[in-house]
């Protein structure tokens, strides 16, 4: 099932759902015809859209709002924080092309501080599905909840079949005593590749799909830290404020520590290009991830990475 099919089904089953967009229709092309007045496009006005979503939520609606991640989280930040966060309204933010998914757009469109920004708002929950299957397993519960929610929309397809979703729970894919990779979002796909390469090099490897970054699964982090010699935080996000920071906070809160290797964007925007080239250039292909953990080059072949369709 696609994002749009899920949203259509959800909105048809629940009259209270309103679908909004700031003229970002890639994910909702068929919904104007299906939902009529319950589809609202405010034009390129992220701030007004969020304020209006708060107003609709005041009247008992559940607005699912769409915009590019960079503009939803940064242009409209104060509206999310002040109108949605303070009022604790069930506005559901669907952020499009977060992280590396903005591929060729350039730094204006790079939302690589979104997790940091959104998790800093009291009441706002934060989610990052690994692929389309994960997305459609997570969203029903995210949308049913009464909390404001920020979701890093990721509609890429992988062959992995995910477990049912429980908010606040990570998905433990594998456990290992040498290294555990903690990741979220589209890098899950590369992490799966890295895990296979690391295993073939003789390592015992764990992999956790974080899914829910706020609330975060503290027990999964603590368990991985306790049972693996090395914990890797892998994310298409600035080093500051994302998963690496979350892991540091959790370990300190529980008065423990771990060997943590962060893989993130350290004080830099990434080089704009099509996604496969971005991953290669920035060192985030499965093979590069595995070799960074191993500390040596291998003869493994990096599987082909599909270029996403252009969608603005």
């Amino acid at each position, binding site marked *: 099932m696609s994002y749009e099919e899920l949203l259509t089904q959800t909105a048809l089953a629940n009259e209270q759902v309103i679908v909004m967009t700031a003229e970002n229709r890639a994910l909702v092309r068929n919904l104007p015809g299906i939902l009529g007045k319950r589809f609202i496009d405010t034009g390129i006005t992220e701030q007004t859209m969020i*304020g209006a979503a708060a107003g*609709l939520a005041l*009247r*008992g609606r559940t607005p699912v709002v769409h915009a590019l991640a960079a503009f939803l989280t940064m242009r409209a930040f*104060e509206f999310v924080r*002040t109108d949605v966060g303070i009022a604790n309204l069930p506005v559901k933010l669907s952020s499009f092309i977060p992280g590396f998914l903005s591929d060729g757009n350039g730094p204006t469109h790079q939302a690589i501080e979104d997790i940091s920004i959104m998790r800093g708002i009291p009441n706002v929950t934060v989610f990052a599905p690994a692929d389309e299957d994960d997305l459609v397993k997570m969203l029903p519960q995210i949308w049913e909840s009464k909390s404001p929610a920020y979701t890093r929309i990721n509609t890429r397809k992988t062959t992995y079949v995910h477990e049912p979703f429980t908010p606040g729970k990570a998905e433990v894919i594998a456990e290992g005593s040498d290294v555990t990779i903690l990741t979220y979002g589209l890098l899950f796909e590369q992490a799966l590749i890295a895990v296979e390469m690391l295993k073939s090099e003789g390592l015992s490897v764990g992999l956790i799909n974080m899914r829910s970054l706020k609330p975060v699964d503290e027990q999964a982090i603590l368990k991985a830290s306790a049972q693996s010699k090395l914990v890797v935080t892998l994310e298409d996000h600035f080093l500051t404020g994302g998963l690496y920071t979350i892991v540091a906070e959790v370990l300190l809160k529980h008065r423990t520590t771990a060997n943590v290797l962060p893989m993130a964007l350290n004080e830099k925007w990434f080089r704009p290009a099509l996604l496969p080239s971005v991953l290669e250039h920035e060192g985030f292909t499965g093979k590069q991830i595995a070799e960074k953990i191993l500390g040596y080059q291998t003869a493994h072949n990096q599987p082909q990475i599909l270029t996403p369709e252009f969608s603005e």
Partner: protein
Amino acid sequence: MITEENNNYQELTDTALKVREHIIRMSTDGGCFTGASLSAVDLIVYLYSRFLNINKDNLDDPNRDYLFLSKGHDVPALYGTFAELGLLEKERLKNHLLLNDHIYWHPNTKIPGIEFHSGSLGHLPSVAIGVAMDLKISGSANKVVCILGDGELNEGTCWEAMLVANAYKLDNLLFVVDRNHFQANMRTEDLIPLEPLADKFEAFGAAVKRINGHSFAELDEAFGAFPFQAGKLNVIIADTVRGKGLPSIQERADRWFCNFNADEIQQLLLELHGEHRTTLTSETLVVR
């Protein structure tokens, strides 16, 4: 023709005077935005007395009207009106800035009758749009009023909101501008000029009326005509005077936030009734 002299508005005039007394009494022990509150009094008293279907018994009724105070720093005028109209116990106004209550410099929903918090300018036009959109979708006839300050119109989101309101033909929505000609420290026309303001709103697609915001007759005529154009955002520009009722602070750039001492409060209450001119000794705010 309706005129003030008919005394049709004596009740409103009396209420407004009492609300101004409340504002003066709140302008001490930490103070408040006295001038901007005084400019909005007649407007707010009129709205709650004659225009809005909002009263102490229907605050949770989905079929009530909605008022959003986007220019949140004039909330003493709103609380004073609530106190006079029975939405808020008068005693609670004495809790201004105290931890035992929630009455502070900007509105919040812990006070009955406040639909949404404000304080950050340029937000509630969009929240009001969301409510107006839902009323349209739901087929409800309720009205939505959003009070804006003129200084607030510096914020681009006010203009963004007007574009959206007009695109969605929200003629159940009324923006009211408390045009007191001042922003915090400066006359608007000396800092970021707004005139010709009605032309600007009309250029954004709105139907506009401009009136004297201290004349109940003019308020009555303008609001009575709402919606004065179907299929459009309606806007009323209410020309007002910052500090209206207190000549000693009226239109003074350095008296936008006032924290008077007890002696000044007593003098200002007399001044409000027209028989005194206060000697102000408290600190003024330096014009930046």
